[in-house]
């Protein structure tokens, strides 16, 4: 792992910018939900921010992302416009999906967020197809599939990895292993300690990295993405992490040993990166404060605009079912 490319200082700062945006956005979503102004099922990715923040600097708008219900962090890191996201979360017609998709189906093709799925495992077969599309277009595009540890045990994982390997498709399978699937510990779902071990069964490269470490995560992602762009085929990356807010917002997390949770929170990767930027002189606290204040303003504007917008008209039930409106 030591010979992965490392992020430059500028890139580290970019990673932090993405990560803190995710964190602040997540906190605002929770705040809005607590206040009752926002009503939606919400799967917080608090704790997992470093993963997509380190991956996405290696991707372009026209690279494809398929993610899951726990995916706002991936999409924010990919550049999903916050105003369109908030309006969608609030079910407004100004949302990216006109309010029809919602939290679990956020989509924004212009920034590459092609599919968000609520079905465990199902980001993978579709990303595989996007990889095929990318290969055919021959423009060095790649497709990224995000999914959790629990998804490694469903059939779609197996079929997709093998399929992508057989056709040498430019797909990165990114398992965000937060050690739990709903209330089930990974230890009860598998006899292997690293899902990346399964890559060998497909003749595919597979690695496990510390997803909370921007150096490792950035390096592994860059390596895998470059391989994909160069026609060297798919990679399985298992990024170890933790989710701080349980499965679904409101989950008390009784099934997580208190020490495990405490240790994870003590190692919260976003403030840790902030501290590192300051300690290593990459940025000073005041500059970061300013950056964060700016992000907060952007988020706030998105929230306000969302609430000010209209709900979709009931006629929308007949639109987008087919290409032509139904009678």
């Amino acid at each position, binding site marked *: 792992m030591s010979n992965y490319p490392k992020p430059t200082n500028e890139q580290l700062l970019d990673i932090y910018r993405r990560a803190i945006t995710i964190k602040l956005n997540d906190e605002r979503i929770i705040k809005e939900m607590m206040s009752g102004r926002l009503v939606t099922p919400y799967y917080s990715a608090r704790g997992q921010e470093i993963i997509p923040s380190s991956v996405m600097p290696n991707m372009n708008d026209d690279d494809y992302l398929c993610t899951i219900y726990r995916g706002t962090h991936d999409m924010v890191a990919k550049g999903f416009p916050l105003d369109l996201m908030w309006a969608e979360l609030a*079910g407004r017609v100004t949302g990216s999906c006109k*309010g029809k998709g919602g939290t679990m189906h956020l989509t924004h093709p212009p920034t590459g967020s092609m599919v968000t799925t609520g079905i465990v495992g199902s980001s993978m077969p579709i990303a595989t197809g996007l990889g095929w599309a990318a290969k055919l277009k021959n423009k060095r595009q790649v497709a990224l599939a995000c999914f959790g540890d629990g998804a490694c045990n469903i059939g779609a994982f197996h079929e997709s990895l093998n399929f992508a390997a057989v056709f040498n498709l430019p797909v990165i399978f990114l398992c965000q292993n937060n050690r739990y699937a709903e209330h089930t510990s990974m230890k009860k779902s598998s006899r292997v300690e690293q899902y990346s071990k399964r890559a060998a069964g497909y003749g595919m490269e597979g690695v496990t990295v510390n997803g909370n470490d921007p150096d490792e995560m950035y390096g592994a992602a860059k390596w895998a993405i470059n391989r994909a762009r160069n026609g060297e085929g798919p990679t399985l990356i298992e990024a170890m992490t933790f989710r701080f807010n349980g499965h679904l917002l409101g989950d008390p997390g009784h099934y997580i040993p208190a020490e495990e949770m405490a240790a994870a929170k003590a190692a919260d990767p976003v403030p840790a990166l902030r501290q590192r930027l300051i300690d290593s002189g990459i940025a000073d606290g005041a500059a970061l404060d300013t950056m964060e204040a700016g992000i907060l303003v952007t988020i706030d504007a998105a929230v306000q605009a969302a609430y000010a917008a209209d709900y*979709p008209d009931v006629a929308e039930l007949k639109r987008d079912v087919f290409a032509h409106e139904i009678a």
Partner: protein
Amino acid sequence: MEKMNMIQAINRALHDAMEADDTVLALGEEVADPEGGGIVGVTKGLSERFGEDRVLSTPISEQAIIGSAVGAAIGGFRPVAELMLMNFSTVAMDMLVNHAAKLRFMSGGQTNVPMVVRTATGAGLGTGGQHCDFLEAWFAHTAGMKVVIPSNSSDAYGLMRSAIEDDDPVIFVETIPLLFGPMETTLEKVPLGKAKVVREGSDLTIVAYALMVHHALAVAAELEKDGLSVEVIDLRTIAPWDRETVLASVAKTGRLLVVHEAVKEHGVGAEIAAVVGKELFGKLKAPIDRLGAAFCAVPFSKPLETAFVPNPASIGAAARALLA
């Protein structure tokens, strides 16, 4: 009589069934107690009482969950498998349709598959397009499969007990918006295949199930004020459905409205309308009408989600139109 919500009633049925019969098993994601005994607690206490050999919290592997239930069933057990939400039946359809439903027939009766598949669904919670479809019509179209959808705690208890004792595979649907309200509950077995006339009336029959039964009752009460007498039938078992009760009612009232939360087109209401229309040809006072969800995926935005499913207003309007 105790006050129980549907979660408690089903939980009680599972406890009683596992207590009464050692061969009753439970499996699914999170169903054992270390994982919380089910997302909303339907299987709470089972693994503590009956052990983690009989009650498995599984990996996220629906084909293996249903396949294991099929295997355990033909191996002599009575597994109760959970598919957390009905939309997830889509990743287990082969096991459900090609195997669970057909093994008895294809083996000429040598193997039977006494299993129950518990699953939950229902719009209203903003979970969007992939988490709250009613797909019972698929299974009703599948010979060999039974489908049960209770609308209250007593039926939930009684139908679950019967489903577990039944020698055929039964899909047992738990309607999420109905799970949480406590109500007077009778702890008695309810036979499969028997509908229930939950309100008598003489001018119009409304056949409904799940949440729609409650809406239909509200509409019936409302219409009574205008002197219109509505009979409401809770179908309870969707497959095989109780033709006798429905036909007798419509023979009396002369008018039929079928209401379900599934998409109307090609829903269960179509079969009921087709059968009643044929059997009572020439004896109806009005065309048979059906209400169901709009022909689209379940929308997320609240006003759309509300408009998507039949509600007392739309049911009332349809009922009045038939009675006009």
